[in-house]
């Protein structure tokens, strides 16, 4: 039989937090003794647990912690010494003070045996309530104080952990915020970049449509016959298209002079490589220059096929270029072996376009010489379009 009684059971939740209580284990097979001990300790206000045998005591010790064990020495089956031996042997219970209750063996041998079994004190039966209460009070106070100390230590530890956790959380929140800000900035940048690209694209498309319109009107003005018009117009737009395809491949960066010439004259170069010869060093040109030269090469080739060196079976065209130290490009279109040509009575659209591309678009100059064996065109323009060729030449003269 066992009973666990709290000497003052508070109504639940009336005191909070509940004042911690110490537990006192009373072990005796004699109910008179347990009753006497009970009434002596009741007023301490702690939890009293009674076990009527050593085995029962050990069961309580399995899952409860006690401030002190009041242990009868003389019990059937398992006596107090044996119980004490188990208590001392177990790590969880080793620290619990044991006070032996004994009626007999007041001689020194038994006292020694009791102390060597782990007793911290002895109380003799019949128990004196005042003495017992005083002794137990000491152990209860000690237990409660220790419990408070470890509770405080745990609380400090928890606070510290909470502090660490909050700081870590704050840090990771800050990092997340920073990442999100960076992400938003990058998004805004990308969107702005995209808007700029679309605006630029819009502008280019409108400009290209304007160029096509102008090309149509000016071709029509010089070639009013519908069939001839469509032939010339479509070929001019095709030439523009090929230069743009080249620029697209180079992502509107710099393109090589030889590539522009090859793209515009590819048709003739493929048919017979000996009829069109390209001679010049590697020369990177910006898109504006590339488009202008694409138009120029197309007009000159068209003219050569119709009137010049490419109109017979043996004439040749040599396209050569060089760059001077002051960054001026000299470009020569030289026809040989063709029929003799003379200046047209009225400047056609083609030759006007060639002149304008060089002077107006490229800030350069151009001279067309109609002579024996074909046309000879001497062209010059600055590599950097912001300075005109005339300004470059003045710079040299000074």
């Amino acid at each position: 039989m066992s009973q666990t009684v709290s000497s003052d059971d508070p109504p639940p939740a009336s005191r909070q937090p509940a004042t911690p209580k110490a537990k006192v284990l009373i072990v005796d097979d004699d109910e008179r003794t347990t009753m006497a001990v009970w009434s002596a300790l009741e007023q301490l206000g702690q939890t009293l647990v009674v076990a009527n045998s050593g085995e029962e005591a050990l069961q309580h010790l399995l899952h409860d912690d006690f401030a002190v064990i009041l242990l009868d020495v003389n019990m059937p089956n398992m006596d107090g010494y044996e119980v004490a031996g188990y208590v001392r042997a177990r790590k969880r219970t080793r620290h619990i003070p044991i006070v032996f209750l004994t009626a007999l063996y007041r001689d020194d041998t038994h006292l020694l045996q009791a102390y060597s079994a782990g007793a911290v004190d002895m109380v003799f039966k019949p128990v004196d309530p005042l003495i017992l209460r005083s002794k137990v009070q000491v152990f209860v106070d000690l237990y409660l104080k220790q419990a408070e100390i470890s509770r405080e230590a745990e609380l400090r530890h928890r606070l510290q952990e909470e502090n660490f956790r909050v700081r870590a959380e704050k840090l990771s929140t800050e990092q997340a915020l920073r990442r999100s800000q960076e992400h938003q900035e990058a998004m805004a940048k990308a969107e702005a970049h995209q808007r700029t690209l679309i605006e630029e694209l819009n502008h280019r498309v409108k400009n290209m449509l304007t160029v096509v319109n102008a090309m149509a009107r000016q071709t029509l003005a010089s070639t009013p016959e519908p069939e001839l018009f469509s032939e010339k117009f479509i070929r001019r737009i095709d030439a523009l298209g090929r230069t743009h395809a080249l620029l697209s491949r180079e992502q509107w960066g710099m393109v090589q002079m030889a590539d522009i010439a090859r793209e515009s004259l590819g048709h003739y170069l493929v048919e017979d490589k000996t009829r069109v010869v390209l001679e010049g060093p590697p020369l990177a040109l910006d898109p504006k220059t590339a488009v202008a030269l694409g138009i120029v090469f197309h007009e000159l080739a068209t003219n050569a096929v119709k009137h010049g060196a490419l109109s017979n079976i043996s004439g040749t065209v040599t396209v050569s270029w060089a760059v001077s130290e002051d960054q001026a490009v000299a470009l020569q279109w030289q026809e040989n072996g063709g029929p003799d040509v003379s200046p047209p009575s009225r400047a056609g659209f083609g030759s006007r376009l060639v002149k304008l591309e060089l002077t107006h678009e490229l800030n350069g100059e151009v001279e067309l010489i109609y002579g024996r064996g074909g046309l000879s065109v001497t062209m010059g323009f600055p590599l950097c379009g912001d300075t005109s060729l005339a300004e470059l030449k003045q710079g040299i003269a000074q």
Partner: protein
Amino acid sequence: MTNSARILVVEDEALIAMDLQALLEDAGYRVLGPANSSAAALALIDVDAPDVALLDVNLGRSDAFGVANVLTERNTPVIFLTGHTAHKLPPAHRHRPLVSKPYLPQVLLEAVACALGKREAASSQA
């Protein structure tokens, strides 16, 4: 007679410049230029004052607003020509006539005639 009026053309794209010149000359105007840059335009207007100026907004790496400022100071009407919309113009020039690229010849010639008409009305009042 408005048709003898001098029109300054500033346009860096050769083909478009050629087309504008042909359209204006066919309509009977005298064309100053076409100039391919602000510097070339400024040099031109110092020699021969235009009655109206037709300015392409984008001139390669620069723009025509410097020329527009000089011309408006001299009370010369300015018409902008651009592939962009009016909101891309600086506030000082946003209310000026604008011909969008690609342009229709009639629209362009009407804008020129309108600018010349206003100029004449203004000078007859003065």
